C-alpha cells in the first residue's frame, strides 16, 4: 500500500505548516530592555590600579571564603592569568602591553575581574528557575535555595564568570560576585572592594553618574585615557565600568556585541508563546486533520475501525 501523491503533499504541507507555526513572527520582535532604570555601579580606573590584591582579600573576607593558598600580600599569583573561581569571586591579573617607562622598563597594567552585573544579563534570562535575578540596585543576585544546578547560567554568561562547586555531590552552588548585595541595600553601604582600595581605583555610585564621571576623566586627561568606557554598551551595558589607557583587547577584555545576550532567545520564546498562540493553533490544525482523515477512513473503508486509542 503506497501513499498517493496528493496525500503525500498533504502531509508535507502540514508538516511545513507546523514548522512555520513554531517559528517566531518577526513582527513580534519588539523586546524591551529589562534593565533597572537607576542602578548602582562601579567605575574601575585601570590606570590607577597598582595590583596590591587588597580587593581580593576584602572579597574573601566579606564572603567568608576559605583562606587562600598563597597570601594576598604575595604578588606571585599575578604571574598567571586567573579567572574567578568558587574560592575567589574577584581576581586581579597583570598584563604587559609593551608600554615602557623612562628607564625603558615594561609597565605592568592590572585588571580586576569579577561579575560585571550586566544590565540585561544572560545568566538571569537563562536560569530555569529564576534563582538569578537583576535587582533594582544593580546587583545580579543568586538564590541558592531555588537553584537546581543545571549550569545553563554558565553557558549563557558572555564574560565566563559563574563558577561551580563541581566537588560538592549534593548541594553545589553557583559562585560569583554578589556586588555585596547585603551591604549596598543599606544606606551608604558599598562593596568591600571599593571601600578597601588604597588608591581609589574603584568608585561606587549610581551608574548614570559614574558614566558622567568617566567621561569627565577622559575629557580632562586625554593623554592618560582612551576614549572608551568598557561596559557602557557591551551586551546592553553593565553595572561595572572600566576606563583604561591601553586598548581593552590587550587587557583580556572580550570584544562583545552591544545587543543584550537574551535578545534572540527571548524574542523567539515570547513570539511563540504569547497567548500560547503557536501551540494552540498547531493543536487546532492537527485536530482538524485528525478528524478529516479518520472520518474518511471510517466512511470510505469497509474495514471496521476501532476508534482512536488503538495505539
Amino acid at each position, binding site marked *: 500500500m503506497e501513499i498517493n501523491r496528493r496525500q503525500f503533499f498533504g502531509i508535507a504541507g502540514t508538516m511545513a505548516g507546523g514548522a512555520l507555526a513554531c517559528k517566531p513572527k518577526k513582527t513580534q520582535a519588539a523586546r524591551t530592555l529589562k534593565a533597572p532604570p537607576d542602578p548602582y555601579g562601579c567605575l574601575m580606573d585601570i590606570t590607577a590600579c597598582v595590583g596590591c590584591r587588597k580587593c581580593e582579600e576584602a572579597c574573601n573576607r566579606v564572603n567568608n571564603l576559605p583562606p587562600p593558598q598563597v597570601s594576598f600580600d604575595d604578588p606571585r599569583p599575578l604571574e598567571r592569568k586567573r579567572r574567578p573561581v568558587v574560592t575567589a569571586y574577584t581576581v586581579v591579573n597583570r598584563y604587559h602591553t609593551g608600554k615602557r617607562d623612562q628607564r625603558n622598563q615594561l609597565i605592568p597594567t592590572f585588571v580586576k575581574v569579577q561579575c560585571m552585573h550586566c544590565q540585561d544579563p544572560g545568566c538571569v534570562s537563562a536560569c530555569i528557575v529564576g534563582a538569578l535575578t537583576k535587582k533594582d540596585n544593580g546587583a545580579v543576585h543568586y538564590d541558592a535555595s531555588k537553584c537546581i544546578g*543545571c549550569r*545553563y547560567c554558565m553557558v549563557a554568561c558572555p564574560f565566563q564568570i559563574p563558577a*561551580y562547586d563541581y566537588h560538592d555531590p549534593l548541594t*553545589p552552588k553557583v559562585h560569583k560576585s554578589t556586588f555585596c548585595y547585603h551591604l549596598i541595600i543599606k544606606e551608604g553601604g558599598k562593596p568591600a572592594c571599593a571601600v578597601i582600595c588604597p588608591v581609589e581605583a574603584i568608585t561606587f555610585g549610581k551608574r548614570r553618574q559614574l558614566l558622567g564621571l568617566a567621561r569627565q576623566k577622559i575629557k580632562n586627561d586625554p593623554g592618560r585615557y582612551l576614549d572608551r568606557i568598557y561596559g557602557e554598551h557591551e551586551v546592553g551595558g553593565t553595572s561595572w565600568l572600566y576606563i583604561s589607557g591601553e586598548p581593552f583587547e590587550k587587557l583580556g577584555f572580550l570584544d562583545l556585541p552591544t545587543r543584550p545576550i537574551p535578545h534572540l532567545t*527571548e524574542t523567539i520564546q515570547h513570539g511563540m508563546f504569547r497567548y500560547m498562540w503557536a501551540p494552540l493553533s498547531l493543536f487546532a490544525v492537527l485536530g482538524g*486533520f485528525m478528524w478529516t482523515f479518520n472520518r474518511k477512513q471510517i466512511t470510505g473503508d469497509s474495514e471496521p*475501525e476501532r476508534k482512536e486509542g488503538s495505539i
Partner: protein
Amino acid sequence: MSAHAKPAPIEFKFWTPGVMVMVAFMVTGLPFVIARYVGGLAAVTNLDNTHPWGLWIGIDVATGVALAAGGFTTAALAHIFGKHQYEAVTRPALLTAMLGYTLVALGLAIDVGRTWALWHPIIYWQPDSVLFEVAMCVIIYLHILYIEFIPIVVERLKGKISLPGPLGSFNNTIEALLELADRILGKVMWLFIIAGVVLSCMHQSGLGSLMLIAPTKLHPLWYTPILPLLFLTSAITVGYPMVVFETTVATSSLRLDGEMDVLTPLTRITIFLLGIYMCLKMGDMVVRGTYVYLLDGTAQSKAFLVEMLVGVIIPWLMLISPRVRRSRRALFIACTLIVLGVVLNRVNVFLVGFQPPYAEKAYFPAIGEMAVTAALIAGLMFIYRVCVTYLPVLSSRPQEVSS
C-alpha cells in the same frame, strides 16, 4: 502487502548474549554513578567552569530527545493523518520514545548538581528561560507517553489477573479498573495524541533555541537564528529512519520478519523531509555567508563537513534510488547514516561548536561520563527487550524458515 498480525509478546529466549552485554554495560556504569554522588561531578566528569555542559547534556539529553522523535512522528502519521497501514510501527516507536524520554530524565537528574531539586521548575516559573520551556514540555510529554502506553499494558493484563492466595479477592476489582481505564482512555486518547505532537514540536525546536543564549560562544557554522527550525526539521526527519533502524535491529536480532512492506514506503517520506532539512542547512549557510569557515581546517569545520556529508547528503542520495529503498541492508545503512547525522549535529551544537572564551583546555568526555552514558543506553535497550518480550508491542511474526 501481507496482512499484519496483531501486536503480541514475542517468544524468544530472553538471556541472549546481546542481553548479557547490555547488563554488563549497566553494571559498569553503576560505580561511576555512585562516585558522582560521593565525590561530586568533578569525580567522574571533565566539566569545568568554561565547559559547564558535557557528554551527558549533549548525548543523553539533546540527542536522546531527538532520537525519540519517532514516537510523535509515527503517531502523527498513523493516528492524525489516518495512515493506518503504519500502525505496526507505532507501538515500538512509542515504546522507544517512552524509554528514550525516561533516559533523558535520568541523564538530566544525574547531571544537575542538585538532583533532589530537579522538580523546582514546576513551582518556580521562569518563562524567559528556554530551558524552562523545554523542561516543562518534556515533563508533560513524558507523562503523555506513559498514558499512551497504558492501553498496551491493559491489553496484556485484561482477563488474566489472578493474584495468589488472599489477594485473589481483588481480582475482580482490578479487572474492573482495567476495563474502566481502557474505556476512558479510548475516548480521550485523541487529545493526548495531538497534545503529544504539539509538545514535541515545541521542545524539539526549544532545544535548538537553547544555545542561542551564547551568541559569542557557539561557532558561526551552527549559530543561526533558525537553529530551532533546524532542530525541529531534523527531529521530524530522523523519526522514520530511527524506526527503520530499530525495527531492523530488533527484527533481525529476534529473527522476526523484517516489515519491509511498511519500512520502504515510510522512507519515501524521508526523502522529502531530509531534502527540506538539507536545503535549510545549505540555504542558511549561504545566506549568512558562513561557507567561509568551511575549509579553514579547524576541528569545527571538519566536524561540520562530516555532519553534512555523512549524515545528510550521502543518505539522501542513497534514498533517492528505489533499489536502496527496497533492499533491507541498503535501507538500513542509509537510515543509520541519517540517525548518525543527527547525533553528530547535536554533539556539534552542544560540544564541538561550543567555544568558550578563557578556556584553558578543550573538553573531552571522561571515562566516567562515557560509562554512565553507555549504561543508560544499555538500560534503555534492556527494558525495551523486557517490554517486547512480555507486552504486545511488535507485530511481526517469526521469519519463515525458507526466507
